C-alpha cells in the first residue's frame, strides 16, 4: 500500500468522522443531564439547510456556521419546551422533532438544490502538511475539525474537573435529589439540551458547507441516528465517542480505499460498512455492564417536574 494512500485515508477519516463527533458530543452532554433528544437528525438537517442558505447569501463561512448553530439551538429549544416544560414523553417529542426538521429543511432548501458555494478551505497553509502519513491529517484540516478537537478537550475537562460538570451529572442521575440540594434542574437541562442543539446544527452546517459544499434534501442520511447509538454504545465516555466517530469516518471512505487498491466490492456493501463497523465495535466495547453503570445517567429519558 502506498504512503500517499494512507496519508489520504487518515485525512479523510477525520474529515468524515467530524460531523458525527460533533453531534455525539452534544447529545452526550444532553443525555448526561438526563434528557434523551432523538431529534438529532432533524436538528442536523435544519442546521445544514440554514448554514447553506446563510453561506449562499453572505459568502461568509463564519456567518454560515453561526447561523447553523443558532437554528440548531432554536430547534432544541422547541424540543426543550415540549419535553421539559410541558413534560411530554421525551422519545415522542424527539421523534417528532426529527420528522419536523426533515420536512421543514426540505421545504426551505427547495430553491437551493444544486446551488454552488465556496468550500471551506484548510485553516492554515504550512510546510508541516507535507509530513508523510500524519501531516495532512493533523495540519491540513478545516477550522471546524480543529474546533471539534478543542471541544473534545473542553467537554472532557468540564465533566472531569468543573463543578458545573458535576452538576450536570448529578441532574442526570437523580433530578429530585439534585433539586432538593438546590441545583436548578430545569436550567441545567435546558442548557444541556441547547448545547446538544448547537452541536447538531454545527454538524449539519459542516456537512453542507465544509464537507460536500451543497444542499440536497435528506443529506444527513442517518448520521443523527448513528450518533445517538454512538453515545449509548460509547457508554457516555468521550474517548469512546471520538474512537467511534473516527471509526465511522474510516468505514465511510472504504470505497475510496477499495478504488485505490483496485478491489471490486459491491458499493452497496461498502455503503453499509460504516454503520455495521461502528455498531459492532461499540457493542463489543460496552459488554461490561458494571462499568457501564458508572457512566450511565440513571434518570435518562424520564420526565421530571418540580413539585412544591
Amino acid at each position: 500500500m502506498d504512503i500517499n494512500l494512507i496519508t489520504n485515508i487518515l485525512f479523510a477519516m477525520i474529515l468524515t468522522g467530524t460531523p458525527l463527533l460533533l453531534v455525539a458530543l452534544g447529545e452526550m452532554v444532553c443525555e448526561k443531564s438526563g434528557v434523551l433528544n432523538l431529534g438529532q437528525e432533524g436538528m442536523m438537517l435544519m442546521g445544514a439547510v440554514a448554514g447553506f442558505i446563510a453561506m449562499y447569501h453572505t459568502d461568509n463561512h463564519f456567518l454560515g456556521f453561526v447561523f447553523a448553530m443558532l437554528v440548531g439551538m432554536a430547534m432544541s429549544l422547541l424540543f426543550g419546551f415540549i419535553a421539559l416544560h410541558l413534560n411530554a414523553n421525551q422519545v415522542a417529542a424527539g421523534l417528532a422533532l426529527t420528522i419536523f426538521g426533515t420536512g421543514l429543511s426540505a421545504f426551505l432548501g427547495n430553491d437551493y438544490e444544486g446551488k454552488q458555494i465556496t468550500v471551506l478551505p484548510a485553516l492554515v497553509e504550512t510546510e508541516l502538511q507535507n509530513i508523510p502519513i500524519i501531516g495532512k491529517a493533523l495540519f491540513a484540516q478545516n477550522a471546524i475539525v480543529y474546533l471539534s478537537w478543542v471541544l473534545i478537550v473542553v467537554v472532557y475537562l468540564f465533566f472531569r474537573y468543573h463543578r458545573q460538570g458535576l452538576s450536570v451529572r448529578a441532574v442526570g442521575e437523580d433530578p429530585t435529589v439534585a433539586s432538593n440540594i438546590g441545583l436548578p434542574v430545569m436550567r441545567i437541562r435546558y442548557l444541556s439540551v441547547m448545547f446538544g442543539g448547537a452541536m447538531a446544527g454545527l454538524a449539519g452546517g459542516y456537512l453542507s458547507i465544509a464537507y460536500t459544499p451543497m444542499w440536497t434534501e435528506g443529506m444527513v442520511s442517518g448520521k443523527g441516528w448513528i450518533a445517538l447509538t454512538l453515545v449509548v454504545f460509547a457508554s457516555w465516555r468521550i474517548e469512546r465517542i471520538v474512537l467511534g466517530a473516527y471509526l465511522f469516518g474510516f468505514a465511510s471512505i472504504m470505497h475510496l480505499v477499495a478504488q485505490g487498491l483496485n478491489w471490486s466490492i459491491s458499493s452497496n456493501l461498502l455503503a453499509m460498512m460504516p454503520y455495521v463497523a461502528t455498531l459492532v465495535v461499540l457493542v463489543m466495547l460496552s459488554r461490561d455492564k458494571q462499568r457501564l453503570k458508572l457512566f450511565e445517567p440513571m434518570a435518562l429519558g424520564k420526565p421530571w417536574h418540580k413539585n412544591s
Partner: protein
Amino acid sequence: MNNVKRLAMLGITKEYPGCKANDDVFLNIEHGEIHALLGENGAGKSTLMKMLYGVVKPDAGTIVWNGKEVSISEPAVARGLGIGMVFQHFSLFETLTVTENIALVLGAEAGNPKTLAARIKKTSERYGMPLDPERRISSLSTGERQRVEIVRCLLLDLQLLILDEPTSVLTPQEVDDLFKTLKQLTKEGCSVLFISHKLHEVTELCDSATILRAGKVTGHCNPKDETSESIARMMVGDDIAISNECRRAVGGEVFVDIANLSTPALSQFDIALKSINLQVKKGEIVGIAGIAGNGQDELFKALSGEEIHRHSKAIKFAGDFVDHLSPLARRRLGMAFVPEDRLGRGAVPELDLRDNALLTSFDSDLVKHGFLNKANITALADHIIEKYKVKTAGNHDAAESLSGGNLQKFIVGREVEQEPLFLLMSHPTWGVDIGAQVAIHQAILELRDRGCAILIVSEDLDELYKVCDRLGALCDGELSDFLEPEALPLVKLGQWMAGDFDTASTNVESKQGVLTHD
C-alpha cells in the same frame, strides 16, 4: 442572647389539593437542644421540614431565625443561615465520590477539591465519623452514607441540623455512635431537630418534643418525663390500640428447608449469598435482621423465584425442591411474598387497587375460564381496604396514588388474605404508622397460629423482637445462628448484624440488654 430562640416557626400552614399538610403549626427550638418532632405517617412532619429547608414554600406563617424573620425560598438560603438537613432518603449521587457529592452542595464555597478532601477528613474524624473522601457512594454502607450527609452539613457553619428518621437504617452500635456525635454537636451550641418513629430513642436522646397529628400540633412535652406509651397516645389519638403482647410459638414440623443456598454476585452492586442454611417450621415466625444491602434482596429473590437458579437444589418447600420453579409456580404451591419495593415489585403503580388485588390472587374464584369476575375482585379489594384500614378514596385509586404506608397495608393484606402456607415478607411495616403496624402484626400472628410458616426480613429490630419466634442476622451474604428473641441480647444481635458471628452460640443464657425500652 440566650432569650432569643434559635428557631421559631409561627402559624405555619401548607395546603395541598385535598389535604391540609400543616395547619397553624408552632415549633420552637432553643440553642443547643435536641428537639424531637413526632407523628404518624402523613402527620405533616416531612412537609414542615421541607418548608424549613426551603424545598417547599408555606402558604401562611412566619419563620423566625435567631430573632429575625426570614424567608427561606430555596435550600441554598437555608444552608446560608446554617441549617443543614439529612433526608430520610439520602440526597447522594451513587456514581459520584464523597468529595464530589459534598462539593455539589457547598457550591463555590467548596474551593479546591484537594483542600476540600482534607477538610472532609478532618471534620469527619473530629466528630467520630471517619470517611474516605475518594470513595464512590455506591461502595459505601448505609451508615457511611449517612455520615457523608452529616459531614456535608458540618462543613457549613452549622447551627441547626435536621435529621429525618436517621436511625431507621443503622445498627444499634451505629445508633450509639450517632447519638454521641449529636451530643457533641449540641455541646458546641448547635441545635438538632430529630424526627423519629422510635419512641425509646426520643425519650433517651431528646430534650423536648413537638407532636403532630393530621397536620396539627397536638402536644409539646419533655420526653424524659414521659413514657413511650404516653407519647404514642399523643401521636395516634385515644381510640386506637397501640400495643399488643405477642405470644411466642414453637412451631411444628419443618416446612421450608434451605440448605447450602449459595448464589453468585451478578454485579459489583450485588452481594453473593454464602451457603445459607435456614429452616422455617409450620406455625412459627423466623426473623432475619440486617442492614440493607447485605444480601436481603438476593435472599428474597432466590426464595421468591425472581432469580431462578435452575441447577441448584437448595430450597425445599413441603418436602420438594422448588429451585427451578417460577414465582407463579411457587405461588401456586402456597407461597406468598411481600417484597421491599411496593411500587414496581409489590404492586403495579398505574393499576388500580382492584387490579392489584387480582395480581397475585388469580388462582381463587376471581377468574373463571380466563374471564375476570369483576364483582368478586371488587369485593376482595374492598375487603382488604376495610380490614387493613387502608386510607384511600376507593378501590379505583391507582396504587401509586396511595401513601407508602397505606399501600404497604394493602399489599400485606392481599398476601395474608391468600391464606398462604409460607409467607415471605421484606420490611412488612416499613414506613407504616403505629396504628397500622399493630393491625399488620396482628394479621401476621393470626396467620402463624393457623399454621403458616413465616419468614420476615427487616431492619426494624423492635418489630423483629416483637413478633418473631426465632431471630438471626444476615451480613454480607452470610447468615448467623438463630435464637429466641428472649435469649438474644440486642448487643449480640448488633454484633451479628455487623458480621461478628464469633460470639454466636456461647453465652446463650445472658439476657441483659434485651429490649429495656419495652
